[in-house]
């Protein structure tokens, strides 16, 4: 890529200052909270805590409620992502590759369902959940988290499937490859980055989901984010800090896995209706 304005007269100090401010704005809160996880105590206006300790970590790991929440999150989110894949990927393929009656309406319908305020939906869904006996059940929590993943799991892979060049597939077919081989080695492989991004985004959506999970899960089922709500109100800040670090680990791992594709435009591509 040619950079047309390398010489553009932006003062270097200005750019560096901007980077510095953005770094403080974005990373500052995370570091500040993270440091508290190791602090004995921290009194305003001291720049340093009164000492460092690991005892908040053992407090978290020895608390059975917190451990259960961690376990629940690590079980529920992968299940949600798997179900979402099974339900949505065929639909994404159809939306990306086939023209069927109502295709556009299908994509827009998913979008408008997404623009109803989540908190209002969770208030409205209680009636249905009581009728179906889903309150405080594992299935109920899975479904509520599934709802937030559908838009990612259909839109992003649909764009990825649509972008696979048809002449590649046709050439492979002409060379004698079976339909299944073509799908597996060409279509699926080329669409893989998009699917990967969809998986990451869906996992994060499910793993992050707190409000709906709290409404239909509590007090029987707590996940890490819903536990966090009660933590910040009932425990010292250091415990919440430890828990935050634990809660961020899966996300950071996924960042490493999919950063290239997400920044490469797979996410952006998925949100342009075609």
């Amino acid at each position: 890529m040619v950079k047309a304005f390398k010489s553009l007269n932006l003062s270097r100090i200005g750019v560096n200052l901007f980077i510095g401010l953005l770094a403080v704005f974005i990373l500052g809160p995370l570091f500040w909270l993270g440091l508290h996880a190791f602090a004995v105590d921290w009194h305003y206006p001291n720049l340093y805590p009164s000492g460092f300790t690991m005892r908040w970590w053992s407090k978290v790991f020895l608390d059975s409620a917190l451990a259960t929440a961690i376990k629940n999150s690590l079980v529920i989110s992968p299940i949600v992502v798997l179900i979402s894949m099974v339900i949505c990927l065929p639909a994404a393929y159809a939306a990306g590759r086939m023209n069927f009656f109502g295709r556009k309406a299908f994509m827009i319908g998913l979008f408008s369902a997404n623009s109803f305020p989540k908190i209002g939906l969770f208030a409205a869904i209680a009636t249905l959940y009581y009728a179906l006996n889903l309150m405080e059940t594992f299935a109920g929590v899975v479904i509520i988290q599934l709802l937030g993943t559908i838009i990612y799991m259909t839109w992003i892979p649909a764009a990825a499937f649509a972008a696979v060049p048809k002449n590649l597939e046709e050439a492979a077919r002409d060379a004698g490859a079976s339909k299944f081989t073509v799908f597996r080695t060409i279509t699926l492989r080329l669409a893989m980055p998009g699917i990967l991004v969809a998986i990451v985004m869906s996992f994060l959506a499910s793993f992050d989901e707190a409000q709906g999970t709290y409404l239909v899960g509590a007090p029987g089922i707590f996940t890490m984010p819903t536990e966090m709500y009660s933590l910040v109100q009932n425990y010292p800040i250091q415990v919440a800090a430890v828990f935050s670090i634990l809660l961020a680990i899966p996300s950071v791992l996924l960042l490493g896995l999919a950063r290239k594709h997400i920044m490469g435009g797979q996410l952006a591509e998925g949100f342009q209706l075609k």
Partner: protein
Amino acid sequence: MISLLRNKNEEGSFTTKGEGPSLLGLGLSLPPLLIVLVFVGLPIFIGLTFSLGFTTGPNRVIAIIGQQIHKKNHWWGTFGAYNDVIHDSRFLGDLSLTIVVTVLSTTLVLLLALSIGLYQRLIGGRKAAVLVTLSIVPLFVPVVISAWAIHTFYSGDGFMRTLFSHMGINFPTLTSTPSAIVIGTVWTSLPFAILMISSGLQAIPDALIESAKDCGASAFRIVVNILIPLAKTPIIIAASFTSIGILGSFTIPFFLGPNQPTMLGVEISNFFGSYNRPQQSLVMAFIVFAIASGIAVAYVRSNIKSARESDRL
């Protein structure tokens, strides 16, 4: 209309050999559609009837438990609960706070994303990569954590006040003020806007920029007359998703905002839970939905327009 529905396959044909007819496509798209219809469409529909005073059938139990329930007095229902909400002074405060925060945060997010995206497109280099990477970070931090981290950062004994007190400056406590909501929503909304806008700007061919430059156009003119118009669709998508997300947000205003007035997302939850006024709570949800739908229409229209234009090219 058919041309709008077309996939971007080069041959312009709808189906390749061996791929199924339209019925198969419809069939494959049914499972997510059914889930959304049953678990989003149906509750919203039942909620709508309840907000209009239909208190029998599925709404019987909630109508018994809830307080200040209006029962329908016409065949189509009643606007009693809507009247309650519109004349509630607390609601008006919440509504204006919600709108102000949404407009202000969306503007800030777009300005930030545009300046970073333009810097990356026109100048590039390592610094641009650092800026983009920094702005993507919030995507990978669960909202509960970001809200709590920002809460502690700007609180009375937080970092900002600590740092400035050592310089002899009394930095204001932002936590539990509307400013903190704006900070939090900008923080969480930035990644999506950056991804949309920067990929839109990157897709603009170099040749266009180069030739404009050769004709003597200034960087400013190129930005205003070429880059922004050509990236209009991704910018509108970023704007609509950001504003719809902020309108209905709960976690950020819940942790960071003042108790009163608060954003409608929090008030919906308060009315449903603490105040036990489910009908009024749903009315607010529908008001938020109405505003969001207005934004959604802009999004869909912009997409259809750009699909039409790219078809013509």
